[in-house]
């Protein structure tokens, strides 16, 4: 073993992870080489100093910001329980569309403003839906129908559920 190789294996020697044959060879070299002995001692002292390095804890507001950002990235589960009055988010969940879609129908869907917020009476929304309902004829030659696969967990109201009833 030469001095370069000895120096490169020193930290693993101090960690006690060297194979027996390499460890023995390193110890023999260090016993005979004053330079490597000095380097090994310096390596040991540095290791002791490294253990004294401070642990840096990030400020609480950073942790909070990370947590908020992660939650903002997570798709929110749709609500299923609604009171008699819905806000815009609840209406989107109720109609099972996104808020942007709801926004396209604001002015058409009956609503009222309170405290700077648009609110919707569920009963009026249901009336609005009833006024738009129509019987859809799912003919087999309708191209869109070809794309639908009836899933086992189709729920009443889904197009796939309607198709399942017809089959």
């Amino acid at each position, binding site marked *: 073993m030469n*001095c*370069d190789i000895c*120096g*490169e*294996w*020193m*930290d*693993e020697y101090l960690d006690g*992870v060297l194979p027996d044959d390499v460890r023995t060879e390193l110890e023999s070299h260090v016993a005979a080489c004053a*330079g*490597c002995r*000095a*380097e*090994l001692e*310096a*390596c040991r*002292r*540095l*290791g002791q*100093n*490294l253990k*004294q*390095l*401070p*642990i*840096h*804890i*990030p*400020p*609480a507001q*950073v*942790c909070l*910001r*990370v*947590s908020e*950002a*992660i*939650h903002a*990235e*997570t*798709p929110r589960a749709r609500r299923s329980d609604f009171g008699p009055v819905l806000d815009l988010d609840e209406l989107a969940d109720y109609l099972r569309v996104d808020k942007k879609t709801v926004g396209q129908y604001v002015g058409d869907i009956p609503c009222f403003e309170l405290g700077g917020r648009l609110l919707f009476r569920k009963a009026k929304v249901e009336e609005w839906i009833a006024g738009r309902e129509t019987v859809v004829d799912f003919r087999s030659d309708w191209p869109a129908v070809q794309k639908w696969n009836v899933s086992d967990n189709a729920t009443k109201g889904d197009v796939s559920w309607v198709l399942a009833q017809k089959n």
Partner: protein
Amino acid sequence: MTDMGDEELMLQTQKGNVHAFELLFERYRARVFGFILRMLNGKRHDAEDLMQDIFVKLFKAREMYEPRAKFSTWLFAIVRNHCLNFVRSQAYLQAQRTESLDPGDEPAAAPATGSGRAVNRGSDVTERLELAIQGLPEMYKDVFLLRAVEGFSHDETAHMLGLNPATVRTHFRRARLMLVEELEGRANAGQAVEA
């Protein structure tokens, strides 16, 4: 869930469990913050912003994690790449130049904790060691931080940095000799650092 391994928590995260990722964040936040802080030469505000940025990106990229990989090596490889991109960015270099003209700005190196004050303030050696690590050449610093401070093996460090393990050993030894020389003087550094 707290007794789950890192890899299992990451799999749970991939299934949409946000709490699993929060546990991972809790486990690694101090190590990652310390690593970023040292890579950024003690610039706290930048380190805080980068820390937030990295963890949010990690969460967004959770599908990229391969369960075969050790989570900590995956994490630190990403953290290190973000740090390098940041310190090489034009905005950062510009800020460095401005700061060098205005020494009254944030100190370039300040061992600090969450409270903004240094632990072991009386330990002159510890503060000098922090500064000496920050002063290492980029590649030596990466290797030294991952190997000696974060405790990764030479092989893991090599894998994270895309280097040969033999190269990592050489870099690590040179970094160590530079630090000893900085702290104790050339006489005690053992052998001289070869160029």
